[in-house]
């Protein structure tokens, strides 16, 4: 006997659970979301980090949710989701005091809708920045920017917000590769990240920032095979095309707005309600059973915001899936995207030595400081991380968000998010992770002060750095503690990510919307939106305006 019934039951109120819920509700379905933790949002949460008085993002940080169709669809601006848009975008400061700042080629003209315009002036500024170290790369920048504006950008947007095409039918990016004028080639889907960086750029500067960008955005190491969408997304970072965006109040504001919009449409979210099993009847998903024994009926469908291993091995069970699914779920790769990540509260912002010749490095939303050692990044960086947990040369990413969002800090203080990559949780013991994290903080400030002399320990008020065990312990779909719900490269990229069949699972009426499926990790990427489109097709539901 069931205890409650909904038309659509969503397992997990993570970022994609909270995104798909209002779509299903808007289609007229009665929607129930069942979340294990005491809060919604998954990786899209903001807490009192590093300590009360400050607000920091526990997981996801860089977001452009204003570009997601849901932003307009559910009037999220009205729900309190507000972005500010700095002109500076991406910066790197090198150990020889040279630097590079990229300015947004597309700036937002209407913050209510996220509408953008092409900004010639910023393009010129970025061109000049690159010309400082490479004329050739500066020309490449102009050429690629034009290709991006006319070809890559529309194809990328279409690719992100359309369900995967069946094998054999080219998707938007594959079609792009068939156009000789696009600058992209179909063979690029098999290039390693190192190969891509070398292919497009000749300077060490842009190659380094490209390789670090592959990591920042996707957890892809130099010898991994990123695939077409990751290549475009990463070059777009390197060259700073789309504007940086700072969300007021932190990433958790996205969740708050989505949850509020969903509530107005009748979405019922149940917290502290861990799902134990997907219930099936005659081979179709018919509901869920909670840990406390409660049974919930799904009159039409069940949507899982989980990665394949949890969904198929735990919630469905090996006895109810095919041998092929079992093998796929068991061998789902997690080994990427593990970080030392956290927030540091400081008295004053870093003042980089390089700012003397390039002042904007002090106020760029994504600022790296790193040695100008391409050979190390290409060949040794990952190996040292996997051997020792930390590389001997650090490529640190910082995000001084409090410049644009003072609501996150006590008056007159600042906070920065900091990040460096590390290895999967299993490689070290709990004690070693604690020791490594302490050492990371020491090395962080030692290194930082070399680039920005005021970044000594005296400038630090408080810090909270997490390591992969912190993520693994709180997020069941993030085994090994990576932020990206599994490796995003190679076979787990593009249409091959997750289950064969895209968002439709082999079990009838059971759909998968998590970032472990097509669309991949990151806030605002398309998996839940595309999953809804697949559901809308199958159930003849209302369809959102096509992208």
């Amino acid at each position, binding site marked *: 006997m069931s205890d409650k019934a909904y038309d659509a039951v969503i397992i997990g109120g993570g970022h994609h659970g909270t995104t798909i819920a209002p779509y299903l509700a808007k289609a007229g379905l009665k929607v129930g979301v069942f979340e294990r933790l005491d809060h919604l949002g998954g990786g899209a949460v903001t807490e009192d980090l590093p300590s*009360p008085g400050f607000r920091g993002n526990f997981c996801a940080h860089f977001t452009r949710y204003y570009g997601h169709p849901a932003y307009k669809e559910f009037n999220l601006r009205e729900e309190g989701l507000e972005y500010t848009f700095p002109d500076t975008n991406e910066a790197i400061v090198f150990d020889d005091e040279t630097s590079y700042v990229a300015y947004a080629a597309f700036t937002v003209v209407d913050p209510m809708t996220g509408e953008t315009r092409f900004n010639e002036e910023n393009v010129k500024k970025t061109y000049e920045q690159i010309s400082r170290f490479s004329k050739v790369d500066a020309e490449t920048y102009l050429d690629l920017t034009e290709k991006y504006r006319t070809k890559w950008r529309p194809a990328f947007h279409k690719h992100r917000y359309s369900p995967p095409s069946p094998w054999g039918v080219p998707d938007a990016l594959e079609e792009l590769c068939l156009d000789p004028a696009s600058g992209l080639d179909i063979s690029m889907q098999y290039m390693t990240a190192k190969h891509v960086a070398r292919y497009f750029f000749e300077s060490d500067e842009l190659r380094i920032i490209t390789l670090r960008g592959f990591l920042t955005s996707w957890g892809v190491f130099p010898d991994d095979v990123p695939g077409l969408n990751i290549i475009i997304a990463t070059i777009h970072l390197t060259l700073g095309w789309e504007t940086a965006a700072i969300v007021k109040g932190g990433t958790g504001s996205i969740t708050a707005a989505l949850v509020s919009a969903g509530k107005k449409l009748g979405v019922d979210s149940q917290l502290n309600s861990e799902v134990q099993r997907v219930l099936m009847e005659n081979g179709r998903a018919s509901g869920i059973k909670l840990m406390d024994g409660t049974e919930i009926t799904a009159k039409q469908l069940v949507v899982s915001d989980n990665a394949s291993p949890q969904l198929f091995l735990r919630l469905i069970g090996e006895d109810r899936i095919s041998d092929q699914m079992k093998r796929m779920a068991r061998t789902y790769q997690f080994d990427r995207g593990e970080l030392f990540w956290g927030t540091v509260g400081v008295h004053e912002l870093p003042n980089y030595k390089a700012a003397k010749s390039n002042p904007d490095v002090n106020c760029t939303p994504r600022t790296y400081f790193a040695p100008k050692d391409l050979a190390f990044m290409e060949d040794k960086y990952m190996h040292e991380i996997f051997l020792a947990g930390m590389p001997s040369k650090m490529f640190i990413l910082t995000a001084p968000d409090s410049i644009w969002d003072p609501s996150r800090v006590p008056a007159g203080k600042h906070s920065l998010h900091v990040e460096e990559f590390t290895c999967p949780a299993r490689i070290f013991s709990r004690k070693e992770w604690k020791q490594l994290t302490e050492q990371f903080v020491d090395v962080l400030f030692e290194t930082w002060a070399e680039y920005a002399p005021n970044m000594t320990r005296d400038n630090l008020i408080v810090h909270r750095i997490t390591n992969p065990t912190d993520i693994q312990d709180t997020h069941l779909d993030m085994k090994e503690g990576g932020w990206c719900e599994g490796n995003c490269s190679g076979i787990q990229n593009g249409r091959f990510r997750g289950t064969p069949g895209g968002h439709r699972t082999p079990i009838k009426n059971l759909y998968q919307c998590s970032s472990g499926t097509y669309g991949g990790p990151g806030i605002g990427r398309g998996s839940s939106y595309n999953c809804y489109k697949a559901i809308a097709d199958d159930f003849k539901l209302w369809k959102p305006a096509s992208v």
Partner: protein
Amino acid sequence: MSEILLLVEAKDGILDKKTLELMRGAKGLGSQLGVEANAVVVGSQTAQLAESAASFGLDKVYRLEHPLLEGFNADAWVGGLEWLCGQVKPGIFLMSHSFVGKEVGPRLACRLNTGLTTDCLNLRVDPEDGLLVRTKPIYGGNAIATVKCEGVPQMVTVRKNAFEPIDEAQTRSAIVDMAPGIAESSIRVKTIQTVEQEVVELDKANVVISGGRGIEAKEDFEMLEALAAALSGSHGNVMVGCSRPVVDKCWMSSDRQVGLTGTIISPDAYIAVGISGAIQHLVGMIRSKKIVAINTDPGCNMFKVADYGVVGDYRDIVPALVKKLEER
């Protein structure tokens, strides 16, 4: 099968509670197997202790007496007990999982060429082969193993609370004097100094406040001491304990350690501050009546076993709590 023997432990002439528990266990096994259940008291002057031990209805109490058995010297005790086992050939030999049991057990088992299982929660005899079936926690309490060992005597050390303490009996046990020969030369380890320290008996506390790896500095334990002081007016005996990493850092002595390798406690209230909840720690405090956890990490295991949880920084919460308690 021959008799069941248990090793008596006492402090200041008073029988240890764990010994009274063992007596009930031994008697139960004895009547089940139809053999004598006997005890041995060890020392240089054992008359009084033997009298105390004789009032619980066991069959015999052996007085294993020798000048070298004064106090507790492991070399002497192992030698003496080895000799006794040679004389009375017990079928089962029970010890408490105590300081003495842990030290004597393995060495004696080796000398007697038999197996030993330590820290048993439960004992029974397999009627088919007559061997003791021993239950013990492994992997820090994450699993409960049942094992058997060959060899005579069947030897175990038993955790406290495995049996109810025995009651005094009408019949007194026969007291049997045993005089072992122990050579001076067998004493290889000599105590040259005993340093008595103020020892905290956490299992006597009504409330225990423990700090763990999350405590950032040794000085921060002063906050926990302040909390203990604030509670002690209303809550009786309040003590400060810790989890293992704190002892490893030499911030606290091991008598304050709660957990599998420290003290196992069951106070009215247990307040865990900055303790993530490794299972070795949990098994030491899970029998607390109420558990309060203070931790920055909402996902940590301590919240799964706690009645009340506070997600936050102890450096903010504990001083605020002390203030509130003082205002009350």
